[in-house]
């Protein structure tokens, strides 16, 4: 019993690290330019399909799939920024919501059209087998995904807080006009933010694909997970997203284990609403 419980919690933490990774992309864009990307979950979905295609065409694992997905999605992020976001950012709220929602439908159903609605998956033994650590069984694929996601999310935090690039991005987030007067191009910084955010989703998607089901509509669920994570961690905070992501991974696994798999999403959504309604600044946000 205790071992199983510990195993469930560890599994939740590893999954939660991946949640944290793609949610930090959402929170970055959100905090920096006050744009909510409703297609965020579908970006993760695209990352999963990149990993799937890499496997079926080249037989390659996440070692090839993950960097490729990161690169492709980062490119997509820049294209989306210049093609859509830059213009709707200044428009009315309806245009922003419509724009990213339309993008979500476009991506989701293009994949649906091409690959069909079938549930796909990568072979279980693509990444090692199963480890036995102190009696706790952990799949190598989950371990790899969790550890890489954790490191990259932490790296993202360091990038934002410890480098010149990070300071420039924060300056643009604070006041784009003032930043421009200081010689920082807001356009360039925001495009970089989109590249980072989308790249993070690509990486997360490729990592999660090694053990998750792959289906065109998976982005809907993952998108909501990202919203929950961001609202819990505070809008715009990467460390907040990290803590919240881990927490949600654990809560999801525990409620799935204790009260049944069908109820785990209900718990997550209820938690989300509870936070939006009663503590919109998140767990660690300022009042």
């Amino acid at each position, binding site marked *: 019993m205790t071992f199983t419980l510990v195993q469930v919690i560890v599994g939740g933490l590893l999954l939660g690290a991946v949640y944290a990774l793609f949610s930090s992309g959402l929170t970055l864009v959100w905090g920096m330019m006050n744009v*909510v990307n409703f297609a965020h979950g579908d970006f993760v979905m695209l990352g999963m399909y990149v990993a799937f295609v890499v496997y079926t065409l080249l037989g390659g694992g996440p070692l090839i799939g993950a960097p490729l997905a990161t690169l492709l999605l980062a490119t997509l992020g820049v294209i989306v920024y210049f*093609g*859509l976001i830059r*213009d*709707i950012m200044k*428009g*009315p*709220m*309806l*245009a*922003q*919501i*419509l*724009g990213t*929602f*339309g*993008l*979500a*439908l*476009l*991506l*989701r*159903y*293009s994949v*649906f*059209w091409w690959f069909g*609605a079938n549930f796909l998956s990568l072979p279980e033994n693509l990444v090692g087998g199963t480890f036995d650590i102190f009696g706790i069984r952990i799949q190598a694929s989950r371990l790899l995904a969790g550890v890489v996601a954790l490191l990259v999310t932490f790296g993202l935090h360091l990038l934002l807080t410890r480098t010149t690039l990070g300071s420039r991005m924060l300056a643009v987030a604070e006041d784009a006009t003032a930043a421009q007067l200081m010689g920082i191009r807001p356009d360039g910084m925001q495009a970089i933010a989109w590249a980072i955010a989308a790249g993070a989703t690509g990486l997360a998607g490729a990592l999660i694909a090694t053990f998750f089901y792959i289906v065109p509509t998976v982005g*809907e669920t993952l998108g*909501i997970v990202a*919203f929950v994570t961001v*609202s819990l961690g505070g809008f715009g905070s990467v460390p907040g997203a990290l803590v919240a992501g881990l927490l949600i991974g654990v809560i999801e696994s525990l409620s799935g284990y204790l009260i049944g798999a*069908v*109820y785990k*999403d*209900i718990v997550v*959504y*209820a938690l*989300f*609403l509870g936070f*939006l*309604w*009663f503590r*919109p600044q998140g767990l660690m946000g300022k009042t």
Partner: protein
Amino acid sequence: MRRTLWLLIALALVVAYPLVFTTPFQQRLGALVLLYAIAASAWNIVGGYAGQISVGHVVFFGSGAYAAMGAYAHFALSPLIGIPAGIVFAVLIAAVIGGPTLRLSGHYFSMATIAVAELARLIVTNTEYLGAAVGLSGPTVPRNVFDMSFISALPYYYLFLAILIITLGITWWMTSSRMGFYLRAIKDSERAARSLGAPASRTKLYAYMLSAGLTSVAGALYAMIFGFVDPESGLGILISVKILIMAALGGAGLLFGPFVGAAILVPLEEISNSLLGGKGAGLTFVVYGAIIVLIARFQPGGILALINRLWAKRRAKPTEESISKEASHAS
């Protein structure tokens, strides 16, 4: 005067449509356009006029659909009896979730409404009484006319038309009443409206409840014409998105905007589905997505706003100044 004339011509065309286009496919298509026009017009009250972009209106749609089918399946009552029950249920839900949700602004409101809708879908999917994942349907053999299961789409067409006219009438009455002025003020700037003494929270809540009730009627009508409801067709997030997109494509915040949007998108979807078959389902939404992105990027006011602007330009050839004035009057 001129406007009334145009309206009468449009009304005559809509009334005459199923008498001119008599194939079952065409009549059914007409009925579906009217059905979605009702739902989108109901959404327009809170999404267009009040500027609160709800992406969870399917909750109210589902209340109506499940009330109608529940009355039919569980109590062998006419689905018509379900309509008032659905309205009451939807308005109650709106009153309960409206309080905390309408306090959220912008994206946060939209996201909260998505979460409510998904929560409702998950709960219904796990509720045996409501048919769980299979859904509810009526008895296979209709017994009398009140079962509302007609083979021809013609009775549905005129029923839907009557309800659409009522919905638009209520909307028009609302916009020209005190509440409409409050809503416009809130949409422009909630803070300014509040500081001038407009009861913003209460007005938004009333609009939300009104919109919820009307949306539930659309849901009940949907259940009648299709004869069944399941979590995907009654509470799926795509229904919310469709409703929202039709209103936005036609022109959110304009009386006839949602109707114009429905008249464009419903035929597009039905025709592409029937031409492409099963493969078309995906492609239809690809086209949907592309259209939405293009509207958001180039014409966020919707098609009707564009037409109004061109019309004003052609009529008077006025200066730049009066064009923008005209446009702001129209919206």
